[in-house]
């Protein structure tokens, strides 16, 4: 058995029984009884419609759900083991608990190993909490791998202008500026991978799975690894993304810490790659984006500004250690402004993110403290963005995100310089 193997004996027996599969669709889950039935239905229909001749396996890697998720999967799929349905292909469903740290990343690890064990040519992973998934998603995520020879397929969705704010204000501009590829939803959560790509992920160092990659960091990790290691990447339009609200016990600060922390850690891993990249390029996009009806999203701007003000009054001294006097001085002034004048410009936000990355790199303060202290700043930026885009339609919002991306690209030489010099902000 391989050193990184995490599949249980029962699942390894199942793998032997299955032998080979062409496509694996992974569904990580934790307490998703309300939605997983629909997700499974869409996946099975997608496989039957798009790949009727392929041998496919749906793997549900569950994190110990207590709401009947596993029972729901078994009820939806029964004990179907390659029911041929009159074709040479067919599909079966495997339910397995995942090993390791509780989190989406650990579920991915199990799915990667399974895909490798059955020698799958393509692997798609979709979230179990999706309410907008359609059978077309399977074609969208698997098609570019099987028909186009791509190794990594990122999702492309239509989302509400206030949704995906960590993506829009930090991860997309940062990843794009660092690695030069315009992957619009680098942490979208639903992906397509080729067999070799899945194998590459599975064969990663053991300690990766002890880090935030095992939790929310998994999405940025797969995306960055694919781009930085020069795998063939593309994106595929899937329609709208609507899913159940996240578990309220998982607070924003932890989410931000794990995602941004993983992105900063990857900057250490691929330092020699991103330092050499200049400019950005479009990647191939499958499917034609179309307008879809989106659910309204409520944003409590006043509450966000209050959090920002509280952060500024209590954490300014701490921020100064990695952001510098000038930036903190501006933030203090901003905290004193009213809702109408509240505006955190792109340039300053870019500087905040870059200086935070350098601060984490040169360990200006404890890394976890640094990352968690970013929450009020992120709140301030989100409030500013919501105010700025209040009257905008989705195209105008996209223009503003593009403008932010350009600010990240323009300021990249500053990042490279301060990173290389390992400069701490003078006290």
């Amino acid at each position: 058995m391989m050193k990184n193997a995490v599949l249980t004996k029962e699942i390894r027996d199942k793998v032997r029984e299955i032998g080979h599969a062409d496509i694996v669709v992974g569904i990580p889950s934790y307490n998703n009884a309300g939605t997983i039935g629909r997700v499974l239905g869409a996946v099975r229909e997608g496989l039957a419609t798009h790949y009727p001749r392929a041998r496919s396996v749906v793997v549900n890697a569950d994190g110990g759900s207590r709401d009947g998720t596993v029972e729901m999967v078994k009820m939806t799929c029964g004990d179907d083991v390659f029911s041929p349905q009159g074709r040479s292909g067919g599909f079966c469903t495997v339910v397995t608990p995942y090993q390791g740290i509780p989190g989406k990343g650990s579920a991915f690890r199990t799915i990667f190993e399974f895909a490798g064990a059955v020698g799958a040519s393509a692997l798609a992973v979709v979230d179990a909490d999706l309410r907008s998934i359609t059978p077309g998603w399977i074609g969208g995520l698997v098609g570019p791998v099987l028909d186009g020879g791509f190794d990594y397929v990122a999702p492309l969705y239509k989302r509400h202008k206030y949704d995906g704010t960590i993506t829009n204000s930090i991860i997309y501009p940062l990843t794009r500026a660092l690695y030069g590829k315009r992957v619009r939803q680098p942490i979208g959560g639903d992906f397509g991978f080729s067999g070799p790509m899945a194998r590459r992920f599975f064969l990663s160092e053991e300690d990766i799975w002890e880090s935030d990659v095992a939790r929310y960091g998994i999405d940025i990790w797969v995306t960055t690894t694919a781009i930085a290691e020069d795998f063939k990447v593309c994106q595929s339009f899937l329609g709208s993304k609507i899913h159940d609200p996240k578990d309220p016990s998982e607070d924003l600060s932890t989410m931000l810490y794990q995602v941004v922390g993983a992105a900063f850690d990857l900057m250490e891993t691929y330092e020699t790659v991103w330092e050499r990249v200049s400019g950005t390029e479009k990647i191939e996009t499958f499917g034609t984006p179309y307008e879809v009806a989106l659910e309204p999203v409520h944003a409590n701007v006043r509450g966000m500004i209050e959090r920002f003000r509280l952060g500024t009054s209590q954490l300014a001294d701490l921020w100064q250690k990695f952001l510098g006097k000038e930036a903190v001085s501006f933030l203090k002034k901003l905290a004193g402004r009213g809702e109408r004048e509240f505006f955190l410009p792109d340039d300053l936000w870019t500087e905040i993110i870059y200086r935070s990355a350098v601060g984490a790199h040169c360990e200006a303060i404890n890394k976890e403290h640094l990352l968690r202290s970013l929450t009020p700043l992120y709140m301030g930026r989100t409030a500013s963005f919501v105010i700025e885009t209040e009257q905008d339609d989705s195209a105008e919002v996209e223009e503003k995100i593009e403008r932010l991306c350009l600010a990240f690209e323009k300021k990249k030489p500053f990042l490279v310089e301060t990173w290389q010099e390992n400069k701490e902000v003078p006290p």
Partner: protein
Amino acid sequence: MNGVGTGMVEPSGVFYRMVMAFLPNLFVALLLFVAGLILAKLLGFIFLRVFRVLKVDRFWNRAGIREVLARGGVKRPISVELSRLVSWLTILIFIVIALSALHIPFIETVLARTFLYLPNVFAAILILLAGVLLGNFFSRAILIALVNSGIREAGLIARITRVAILVFAVTMALEQLDIGKISVLIAFAIIFGGAVLAFALAFGFAVQPYVKAYLEKRMEEAGRQEGDGEKGDRIDHL
């Protein structure tokens, strides 16, 4: 005359012999002292380099000890201060060795006692240092967590945490130094227990109307926000 002469010469002779016997010891002591000075200088230089290579200053800054020391008037980088400490410790050790080379019983007794006590001093210093480190770390962690939870009293709670840890460390250090062992412990227990009791009583009785009013206001606000649609965010951040 002869008797007087003999009486004076003999003590002088004894004194002379004693001086002659002591002189080599004194010479050795002086030699050791000078060697100590030279070695102290050398070790100070070497340790300064080592501390800089190990980036001790950065660790100190990160741990927040630089701020604490700066408040106490220590402005130089900690690598310089530590290398100076190494130098002075070397000098001190050589002074002790030099003094013991003199073979004076009283000094030997004092030195023996001092040497026996020194480990306690070092342990106390380490305890204080750990107290400062832990106090800074936990107060900062609590401050950030409370700010992220939107608690306005975050700064106050963080400061209380730091002071509590420091008081605990000082108590342990004093106990290590054997200074007022029992009285310090009793004082600590009284102060801590008293503070906890005072908080409990204050919260239970003295500030009851304010707490009541505060909680009512918060509940009213929450209710109003529900009514106004000012609920928490429904933004999907990822």
